[in-house]
């Protein structure tokens, strides 16, 4: 059960726009191990969809099935309305940016970028023109004649992107493309990726295990766990309204509120920054879940301070306050202080 109801994909369109990807009942087994189980996922044309999950959750397998590198055990994959389940990778209108870039070590950068055109039989002159433009797009015209091993990680990443985009695919698949980069470069590349996606306007399906990256980049996030999709929704939806305990825990800190304490008698999740922290003598707000407790720990994180509150009902609640006022939240409460924590029902997400 999803807290966020996505509008059902239109079934009236006779021919979906180029770039739509649709997986129906897709399963993948490796021997006895089920990597992906009965997966239904619809990606809209031009959408930036992230597949987020821990390693081994099946997200990369799904990407490889869309690319055609892995056969599905059962189910079907449609690309722009056409069934491609049995189509080999070289005949699919998708291109891939690989985790370790997979640049051909014996080709120059220009030859790498132009490889797809060469396969397609594009003339040498036309290839040179298009490679030039593609390299310009990723601002790497200067390295055209070098070999891959002479480039930095970030440069290789952009070349892999240019090599995949030069064929103007309907869908671009990205397998943890920023995983090998250091944090600062990764953040720069995130912005660049987003810009490029906006420029070319094609569907991006992006695999990552970094929840912050998924939230920052995506129009929608599909959260994977144990070969299943736990929830699909906008960044805001999956973060604010996790549908399952796994989603609540995987995307940042979360307070899991047992059913008997929730307003509507169902287990729910409340993000720490949605918990109000008040002095114990404050009256409980009407319509809110309100609990009394003692601060057992305070954690300073820079922009925020976290307070661990042991409530009288036996639940430990984390409340997070921004350090944006003087005196800052940090000094507002200390260990041992009696406090009241409360949240309203609209900030609690029912967990199925």
């Amino acid at each position, binding site marked *: 059960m999803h807290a966020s109801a996505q509008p059902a994909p239109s079934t009236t369109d006779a021919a979906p726009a180029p770039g739509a990807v649709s997986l129906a009942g897709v399963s993948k087994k490796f021997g006895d191990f089920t990597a992906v189980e009965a997966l239904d996922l619809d990606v809209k044309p031009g959408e930036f969809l992230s597949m987020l999950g821990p390693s081994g959750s099946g997200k990369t397998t799904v990407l490889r099935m869309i*690319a055609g590198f892995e056969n599905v055990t059962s189910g079907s994959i449609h690309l722009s309305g056409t069934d491609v389940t049995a189509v080999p990778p070289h005949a699919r209108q998708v291109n891939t940016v690989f985790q370790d870039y997979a640049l051909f070590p014996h080709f120059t950068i220009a030859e790498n970028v132009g490889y797809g055109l060469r396969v397609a039989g594009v003339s040498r002159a036309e290839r040179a023109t298009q490679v030039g433009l593609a390299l310009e797009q990723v601002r790497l015209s200067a390295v055209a004649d070098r070999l891959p091993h002479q480039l930095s990680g970030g440069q290789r990443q952009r070349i892999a992107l240019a090599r995949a985009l030069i064929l103007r695919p309907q869908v671009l698949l990205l397998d943890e493309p920023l995983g090998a980069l250091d944090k600062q470069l990764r953040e720069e590349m995130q912005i660049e990726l987003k810009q490029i996606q906006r420029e070319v306007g094609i569907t991006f399906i992006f695999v990552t295990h970094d929840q912050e990256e998924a939230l920052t980049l995506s129009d929608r996030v599909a959260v994977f766990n144990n070969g299943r999709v736990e929830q699909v929704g906008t960044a805001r939806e999956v973060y604010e309204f996790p549908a399952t305990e796994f989603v609540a825990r995987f995307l940042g800190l979360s307070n899991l509120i047992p059913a008997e304490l929730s307003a509507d008698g169902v287990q729910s999740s409340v993000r720490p920054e949605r918990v109000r922290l008040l002095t114990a003598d404050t009256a409980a707000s009407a319509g809110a879940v309100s609990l009394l407790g003692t601060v057992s720990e305070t954690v300073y994180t820079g922009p925020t301070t976290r307070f661990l509150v042991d409530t009288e009902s036996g639940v430990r609640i984390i409340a997070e306050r921004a350090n944006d006022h003087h005196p800052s939240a940090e000094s507002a409460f200390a260990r041992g202080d009696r406090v009241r924590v409360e949240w309203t029902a609209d900030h609690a997400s029912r967990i199925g």
Partner: protein
Amino acid sequence: MNRRAQLSALLALPMLWLIGIYIFSLVMLLVTAFWVTDPFTSKVKPGFTLRNFEQIIANPAYATTSLRTLGIALAVTVLSILISVPLGIFMAKVASPKLRAILAVAITLPLWAGYLVKILAMRITFTEEGFFNSMLGPLGISGPGFSIVTVVLTLTYLWLPYMAVPVYTAIRQLPPNLFDASSDLGAGAGFTIRTVVLPLIRPAIIAGSIFTFSLSLGDYIAAKFVGGSTQMIGSIIASNINLNPPIAAAFSLVPIAFVVIYLVSVQRTGALERM
């Protein structure tokens, strides 16, 4: 001081081997090529003559044999490559781990049997009433018998592991993503093999070819037992080794020259560093 002593200890045996046995015998071979044989007593006398070389150059049989041997060595090498590349691709990319292990054993199996045993096996296979003819005879196909073709087949059988193993290893070491990337960019299997696999495994092919080429070049037992009237450089050297050692020595320099030319021509490719 201590380091020098250690270094000497480390190198004593290899240097003794290399200089005392290896280089010395080669130099002696070279020197002998200029010595004289007494035509009556067949005694070898130290001296200096170019007659041995003149004889080799003047007699067209030597030149023909040299070219034939070169051709056999090249054919064995080409045949080994043609077998090893598809086999290596199959083993590394298609076969299940179990089948891969079985094939790896099968490929290296010839190395475990004795050299003469293998030649005998080929002799039994290709003899007049042998396996090949009795199996395919009813279809109207007759085998090559004992001929130059059988020599090439036998030498390929003997030396294939030296090509197949490095080629297979090189293919296994190619990042699997390169195959995916090539396919992702629209290339079929043939295009990928031509543009990605072959260039990247070239050093391994060259390393393997050094073995298949030079081992074939020096062989004469195969020609003797399955070659019929086929003569190789080694056959002539063998028949002169007692009769006329200086001629044998002079003729020995021909395959050495071939191998040196081959090594020099592949040296630029960087293949030698991979051996």
